């Protein structure tokens, strides 16, 4: 009997424990399913926030983005032997389709586009917010998507154009033509202007404004050589009465003077105690919100890059017989012997690791000052919260000068140029000057090229200017020493894309790669 009892008990145990199949149903408790998300204002807002979050990530504006633009311009030289290989390749023009900096920026822009697409495609599920509020959120996401495509198409040419998020692994698209991508960017930026406010309150500073959309649209038209339409958009910004040049040139690059009157769009970095978020996509709820630019560029930081001699010598200088040394030279760069750290420290040659520059024939150490925290700090590791200005009003005015000149309106163009030179802290003599006569369209163009370069140096604008002018055959001499025609106009489509996108063959690669 005892045996049977134990057996019965054991069999019951067996049946009870082993036959309940419902334990096989498990749902991930650590997240929300896609179907269940985007269904109210707060979720939609979070989804839009993550689009911005991608923009500020290490793979974009906090790091790789400024390297890609700057190293492809002629504004930069290697700080020394410590510039890492893929960056050095971009500087020397020896990069290929495997270049990681370039590949990373491509990847990051497409992740941003995917996040924006998911917001736009799923937004109809959210019904608890006013139509205008929802439209504004969507417009922000659409702006960031348009911005990404604008960047992609200007650097890579025609790229795959995803207007909706991809719902299956075989949803990859072939390259569109650059005209198709530009057309999408333009239609988007036209469509969202009405949904965007001109300004935000303090708590929402950093969000996309109407002015930003107009300015980006102007940039897009200019990149295509459509000056008439560019002028229309630029004038919207110019006449909005929202923006003005600030008196002090340097206020555009300091932490205390973010979101000033001159600022049209900034990527917002915020001090997080020296904690930099190395995650490529910028993920992590409590991750740092700083940029590593100061560390990469600063004289007492890694000093991976320094201004090129060609940039330094672009500035008007008394030593060369110019009427006045351009104050923006000293504002943009630190020279040995200059005070920093709120005047408490003096920069020495020994602190500046690496190469020297030659300015007006004098060999000396010069380091980047723009966007550097050195103005108020003396730390050897500096990451910080200085916002990266993506678009500022000075560019609007310079672009107006360019479009007016292209449209044959020379006096108006010169007037705009002189506004830039009249900034209080700059106060450079008006055009025409001995060096820059402005009687012909060609002369004005030369002055525009000069003024844009000295005004927006190190602001990731020069690269795009070169791309635009090269495309429109306006460059008199090619500024990039390594330049090889039918190759260096565009970046190569990243190898990862060629390898894994069944719609892109090796034959679709940009020429020369």
């Amino acid at each position: 009997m005892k045996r049977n009892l134990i057996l019965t008990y054991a069999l019951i145990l067996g049946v009870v424990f082993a036959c309940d199949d419902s334990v096989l149903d498990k749902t991930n408790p650590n997240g929300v399913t896609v179907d269940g998300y985007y269904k109210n204002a707060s979720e939609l807002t979070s989804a839009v926030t993550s689009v911005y979050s991608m923009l500020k990530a290490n793979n974009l504006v906090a790091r790789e983005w400024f390297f890609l633009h700057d190293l492809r311009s002629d504004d930069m030289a290697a700080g020394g032997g410590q510039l890492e290989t893929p960056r050095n390749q971009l500087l020397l023009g020896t990069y290929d389709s495997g270049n990681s900096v370039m590949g990373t920026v491509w990847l990051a822009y497409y992740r941003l586009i995917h996040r924006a697409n998911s917001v736009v495609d799923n937004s109809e599920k959210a019904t608890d917010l006013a139509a205008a509020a929802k439209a504004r959120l969507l417009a922000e996401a659409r702006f960031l998507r348009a911005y990404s495509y604008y960047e992609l198409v200007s650097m890579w040419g025609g790229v795959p154009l995803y207007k909706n998020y991809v719902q299956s692994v075989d949803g990859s698209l072939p390259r569109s033509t650059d005209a198709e991508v530009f057309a999408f960017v333009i239609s988007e930026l036209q469509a969202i202007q009405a949904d965007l406010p001109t300004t935000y309150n303090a708590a929402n500073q950093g969000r996309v404004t109407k002015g930003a959309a107009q300015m980006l649209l102007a940039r897009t038209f200019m990149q295509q050589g459509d000056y008439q339409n560019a002028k229309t958009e630029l004038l919207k910004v110019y006449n909005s009465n929202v923006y003005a040049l600030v008196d002090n040139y340097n206020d555009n690059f300091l932490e205390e003077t973010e979101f000033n009157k001159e600022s049209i769009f900034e990527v917002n970095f915020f001090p997080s105690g020296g904690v930099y978020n190395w995650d490529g996509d910028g993920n992590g709820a409590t991750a740092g919100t700083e940029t590593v630019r100061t560390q990469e560029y600063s004289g007492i930081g890694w000093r991976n890059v320094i201004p090129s001699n060609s940039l330094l010598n672009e500035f008007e200088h008394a030593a060369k017989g110019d009427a006045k040394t351009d104050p923006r030279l000293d504002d943009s760069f630190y020279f040995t012997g200059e005070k920093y750290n709120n005047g408490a420290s003096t920069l020495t040659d020994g602190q500046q690791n690496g190469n020297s520059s030659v300015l007006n024939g004098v060999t000396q150490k010069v380091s980047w000052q723009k966007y550097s925290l050195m103005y108020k700090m003396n730390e050897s590791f500096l990451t910080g919260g200085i916002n990266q200005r993506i678009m500022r009003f000075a560019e609007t005015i310079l672009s107006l000068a360019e479009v007016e000149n292209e449209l044959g309106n020379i006096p108006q163009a010169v007037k705009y140029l002189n506004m830039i030179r009249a900034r209080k802290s700059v106060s450079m003599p008006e055009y025409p000057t001995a060096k820059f006569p402005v009687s012909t369209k060609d002369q004005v163009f030369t002055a525009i090229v000069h003024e844009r370069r000295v005004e927006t140096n190190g602001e990731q604008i020069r690269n795009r200017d070169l791309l635009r002018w090269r495309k429109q055959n306006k460059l008199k001499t090619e500024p990039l020493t390594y330049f090889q025609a039918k190759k260096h106009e565009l970046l190569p489509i990243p190898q990862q894309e060629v390898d894994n996108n069944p719609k892109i063959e090796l034959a679709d690669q940009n020429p020369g790669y």
Partner: protein
Amino acid sequence: MSRWSLQIALILLPFNLVTAKTFADQQVSGKVTTENGDVLPGVNVTLKGSSVGTSTNPKGEYSITVPSESSVLVFSFIGYGKQEVTVGNKTQIDIQLVSENQALEEMVVIGYGSQKKSSLTGAVSSVSSKELTALPVISAEQALQGRVPGVRVVNNGSPGQAPIVRIRGIGSINYASGPLYVIDGIPSGDLNNLDPKDIESLEVLKDASSAAIYGSRASNGVIIISTKKGAKDGKLHVNLDTYFGTQSAWNKLDLLNTDQYIQYATALLGNAGIAMPGRLSDLNQPIYNGATQTFAQTHTDWQDVLFRKSPVQQHQLAISGGNNVSRFFTSAGYFDQEGILVGTNYKRANFRVNSDHQIAKFLNIGQTLTFSYDKTRGEQGFGGGRTLVMQAIRNLPYWPVYDPTKAGGYSSPTAADGSDPDNPLRIASMDVTRTQRIKLLGSLFADVAITSFLKYRFSLGVDVVTSLGSDRFPIYNDGYKSRTQFELRDSRTSYFSPVITNQLTFDKSFGKHQFNITAIADKQTFRSNTLNGTGYRPNNDIDQMQGVSNPSATSSLDESSLISYVGRLNYEYGGKYLLSGSIRRDGSSRFAPGNKWGTFPSVSLGWRLSEEEFLKAVPEISELKIRASYGQTGFNGIGSYAWQSLVSADNNNYVFGGNKLLGSYFSALGNTQLKWESTAMTNLGIDLALFNNSVTFTAERYNRNTDGLLLEVPIPNSLGYSSSPLSNIGKMKNWGYEFQLGYNKNDGDFKWNASVNLDITRNKVSSLATENAALFSGKNDDFGGFDIAKTEAEHPIQSFFGWKVDGIFQNQAEIDRYNALDGDDQTKYQPAAAPGDIRFKDLNGDGTINLSDRQYLGSFIPKFSYGGNFGGSYKGFDFTLYLQGVQGNKIYNGTKVIEQGMLRLFNAGTDVLNAWTPTNTDTDVPRAVSGDPNNNSKTSDRFIENGSYMRVKNFNIGYTIASKPLSKLTHNTITKARVYVSATNLLTFTKYSGLDPEIGVNGSSNASGTQLINGIDYGMYPQPRTFQVGLSFGF
């Protein structure tokens, strides 16, 4: 007693099958002992030709009544040779049973049971407890290296890091394809927590037919471990094992001294037009303010700074005993290994109680329980993907290790040095990443004999792990780099996994037909809770999370479950023809509804030719068996929720104004079609034993095909997903041969044995997602910045892939000639080439070098690997020599890239002194030029080296003090004593020029695809050479 399951029953229930009847005739009694004189209880004493029998009592004594003088008594006991004695007129018959070294009669533990080795039809290899404890290593996994053909073990990093174990090739592309470990019936994780000295037997189930009983987790093989049990001899056994050892690095790289460094820096920077760093022209400055020593007087060998002689020790006290009713095994162990690299160590304390009890004739209850605590401090520096070895190569020879004027006490080169290596000693000493684990692994089981042929077993096992991780990154300022806040991270993971098994076994013979049928229902659940906290302190005063700024805490929960039903039939006809078949049905929560269940069948056949009449006439052949098997297994080692597509909610942030908002995004596509990965394996085997089993030989051939490979689809980045969805795409093939040859000489004063094994494994990816899909891996900016390996169809997984060196450009004319190859000298062959740069091979002949000119450069998988064990004893002396090696594999020597790549200014290997110059043209080292404009350091055959090696893995000489005089001397306190000296990794024969040819997969966290960086030496933690002295006492 030839039927295997009855033998098992015998172990458990020595008396239950024996009935003592009384005869009035003649009483015979006696004592049964071993050849050493130890008494043997439980020996079966039967009257030949009848069912009459008895067994010996705890004192080894028996008494039996026999009907006549011509009666024959048969003495049998597992593990001992059977003896038959004709009674004659004796009333006292004492017997010495001789221990049987007939390997073929060994019992082999298989899934959910055990089987006589002679009845095996699958490919199962056993490893003895002696082999497992020969090396001073943490885990049984490490001890397995070179022991079993078909099992590849690669040590991987600092003490406590689990080695890479691959059974019969590689089973998965995206996942660590390690075997399933089943410890006392409980499927469990890695073996670090398990004291190898507690292991009684370890079996490797290599082919699908033996492993398929574990169904969906068996694709990568199964390792079954049984822990020790007490003896039933009525005695208490106390054993103390202890050893101390000292470890050191056996190899060193040849790096530049200060003078050589200056010479090199001058060339490197000068050729790139970069000014010399100020320091190099004035090394006569003090190394820090107030120091009397100058840089010129400082000669730091950073390898000597980092590597050290370090101790290793292990102690185990085991107490065991038992009688016919109960038996037990209790042990307590301590293991302590300091790594040969500063800042690494591993410690373990473990305790075990195993017992079982014969409650009633039909009921046996038992338990196993181990409690283990371990603490690992791992190698630092992976944060930036830079290993300590790499940092040691790069640091400057004139740079001092310490600087008391700096916060933290360490300094690093400054801007004046033009170089920015980290101080590796600072990293290794100050920064701490520590994991502590408390593991409890236990089981309870009850065996119920329903009838003599039907048994029921219920078992309940639990695997509980509490893991505490703590990372401490204190504030420092070494003059160049600094950390302004003390960063603290703590993590807690508690893992709980119960498994319940119900098993019915039918075992019965009908004439020559013998059946063994097993049915099992089994359920295991897994639950893991994780809590992570991070914070920053303003100073280093407290290393706990108190008063921290920016605190953050996250938690997560991970649950999955597995339900299984298993059936197995073993059939044997006349001990000659063997048939085995099993089927397992597994249901897992890890797959979408509709795909949760998978079925895994297997069948195997065996034919013991040696039992046939025509071979019985050949006495030299003691065993000849051929075996064939086929089976299907699965793999479900994916994440618990991989098929579900999720929004990563509130997982990032952006600051608007001054307000931080959290952001959510859609990171990965799900895949409701996700299903089991399935592996089909065929196996052919032959077992041969000659000359009374003194020579044994086994050969296997297998074919392993994986279909529906669980793979992250290599999607183009333009799709925008942060991670690729899993899909059942791709097929992979592994195939190979295994040989094992053994010889035993067990008589005479000089006994010796030898065994060698050889393993030939091949791997090929048959298909990936799409025809041209390829997975690239290994890219790391410090190591040239190019992909190093490629995985694509028709090639072995993760083969090295890069350019081929074609020579060095000797002059501009040669470069011009190459530029004009395609008829246009404006399109450059290599855009930045200058004399002294490497000329790569133009594979496609288009007159320019680009990504299309890369080709396959070899595989990390050895052409064959082998092990050899030679042991012998003469009177009290014994020795073993154990060799292990691999042949025909390639290593991508990243340390050579660091030594010779000349990318940026750091210290380098002495080879750079032989760099090309206009006057030194006969060299294979390209010119020194900072920035490497020609990409001389890109992935090429220049850094591919032969990874073959042969190691004297262990050499051990011991002396056992004869037990009788010892007992006398110690008044019976010590009954057994052995002392030994042993050397591990004594000699390594290799052409590899890095520190150590054993290259695993760690050392580069920023290389993409951590599974696909095998054999790339990013500065691998080298294996130590160890000398040890050990003592073993029995009380």
